[in-house]
């Protein structure tokens, strides 16, 4: 690591950009607090995952190329999402099979790309100071972050540094919430039944706040809890760590 502060490109994610800007502002604040300089590359849109998961590899590849070009110049790329970071780190290689030049670039980008909590905890060795939140919360492990990147201990270690926050275990915390990207609109009744199970498990914890590391899952669970009239507020883990928990949540 150079002596200077590292230059971090924030991968905003398409969902945070449109649906919950607060998550991206929180991520930017946290990266800065951890001792890095935040950049928000203008050329970013999406990581390409919707195309990849639909089997539209050519479309996904075209977008992956732009992500690689836009983000390669920075020391690190950080996304407040295990899903988008996982796409870049573990799936881009499949899109450039048989193209050594692109594979090299992709590998370089994958190596410097991190999910937010893994970057804060694992790379910058940062922990929250002076953040307080008097609440009981429960945490859902989003699948892509958990299984593609191994995000598990990091958010819990960071959340343990928040004063007054009690974290309660969620039964079935490693079970999918039923979001699944396009799955939730292609098979809405199946997705709805899965998230109904998840909402029941969340209610059973008695927590007043639900935290997770991915907006897609959070919107799914928050939408179900809200529809059921359950007064559990949902926030991204970045919002909690940055002391930016306010209002009704997601």
């Amino acid at each position: 690591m150079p002596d200077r502060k590292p230059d971090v490109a924030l991968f905003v994610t398409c969902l945070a950009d449109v649906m919950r800007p607060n998550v991206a502002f929180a991520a930017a604040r946290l990266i800065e607090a951890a001792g890095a300089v935040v950049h928000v590359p203008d050329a970013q849109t999406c990581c390409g995952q919707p195309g990849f998961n639909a089997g539209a590899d050519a479309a996904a590849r075209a977008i992956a190329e732009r992500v690689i070009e836009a983000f390669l110049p920075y020391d690190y790329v950080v996304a407040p999402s295990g899903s988008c970071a996982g796409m870049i780190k573990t799936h881009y290689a499949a899109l450039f099979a048989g193209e050594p030049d692109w594979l090299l670039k992709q590998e370089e980008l994958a190596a410097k790309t991190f999910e937010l909590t893994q970057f804060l905890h694992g790379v910058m060795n940062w922990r929250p100071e002076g953040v307080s939140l008097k609440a009981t919360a429960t945490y859902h492990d989003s699948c892509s972050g958990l299984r593609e990147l191994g995000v598990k201990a990091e958010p819990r270690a960071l959340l343990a540094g928040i004063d007054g926050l009690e974290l309660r275990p969620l039964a079935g915390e490693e079970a999918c919430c039923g979001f699944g990207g396009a799955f939730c609109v292609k098979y809405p009744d199946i997705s709805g039944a899965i998230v109904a199970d998840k909402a029941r498990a969340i209610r059973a914890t008695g927590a007043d706040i639900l935290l997770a590391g991915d907006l897609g899952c959070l919107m799914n669970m928050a939408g179900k809890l809200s529809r059921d009239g359950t007064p559990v507020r949902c926030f991204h883990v970045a919002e909690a760590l940055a002391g930016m928990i306010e209002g009704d949540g997601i």
Partner: protein
Amino acid sequence: MSGPAATPAAFREQAAAALARPQLKVALDRATALLQGRRREVMADYPEFQAARDAAARIKDHTLENLDHYAAEFAAAAEASGAKVHWAETPEEATRIVVEICKARGAKSATRVKSMLGEEIGLPAALAAAGIERVETDLAEHIIQLADERPSHIVIPALHKTQEEVADLFQAKHARPRASDEVEALVESARHELRPKYVAADVGISGANFLIAETGSVATVTNEGNAELTTALPPCHIVTVGVEKLVPTMEHAAVFLRLLARSALGSEFTQYVTFFNGPKRAGDRDGPEEMHIVLVDNRRTDMLGGDMREMLRCIRCGACMNHCPVYSVIGGHPYGGTYPGPMGSVLTPALTSLEEAGDLPNACTLNGRCQEVCPVKIPLTDMMRAMRERQWRQGLTKARSRWAIRAWAALARRPLIYRLATRAAVIGMRRFLASNGRIRNLPLAGGWTASRDMTAPGPRTFMSEWKRGRR
């Protein structure tokens, strides 16, 4: 085959029907909690799980790469021990061989041990057509036969039925009136029905969990003892088995036995593991006079050369479906084919076609838990995605999805236009805000808002606010 229509093409309708059955959810919740819990406990005492599944995957890959060699070795060893080995390329050929063996013996009834391969080749229907009484001896298969249904799980065929439903079914169909609804009483009632039929059967038909090439042995892994009664009492034992069940030696089989019991039911070992080596020999006190082994291909050798090859590693433990969020709400029937859950979603399109089973690889959240628990490391979610890619290339993707992805890709490649579109989307969506600050009904997202509220976007995009200097 009896029971409701089995076709993966009807996935959506069948899933909707399954979701409308509250009793099914009760059965699924009980089974899922039990199976996940037991597996978690047993794996905590099995630190070599990762090493074992690495070894298991390598053994399977090696065997599949040399399938011709091991199949020939197995056939020679099995015939040397007195069994007759038959080769069947198609399900029709396989069932014809079985029926011919039965007819040659003048068989009127056959006891059967649960075998998914038997279901796959349509053996129950073939026996019925030949006028041979079929007696299912596995407790769950006995339930399925009485109810005239299809198995909904590859290890626990009657997983979709609650204990209460089984009690009512036995009351209606069994000769003896019910003593109680307790499991022990239900088992006793089934035993009372089945025992005389074991003795009277002319033929016993089983599947196999493993074929050991070196010794020509057929191995079955069971918990009820019905495999032993089915295969030892009648004068003729017929095995129907897929060629991918081959392993080179007993030592290799041992690796799988440890993985299979733990992955399937969360137990360290099953009650019975039996190795069959040919029919009764001179001086043996019991055993069948004849033993036939029908090796079934049914597209398996086609899969060897393509990107579905890893699916042939499958040892049918069911762990993937026990940990699948989709299976946990719809059960096994909507998948249509013989095999439900994640392994079925990969295997059924290979056994039928991607046209007919087009929904299966798509009705998955790609959460990856199935491939995490798979004891032979089949990359199930990666394979489902690969099938979606093939669907896209072959023009099988639904028009609506194609247009949505094309529109998204066109925007995502042009950041400036994308910014305008996202700003417009925020403004547009905010017009639908309800009094609770969320969206309760959103055009084009009716699937979402049918059962969930939608988060209120914005108020402006992050990119536009960041540009304006907000931090």
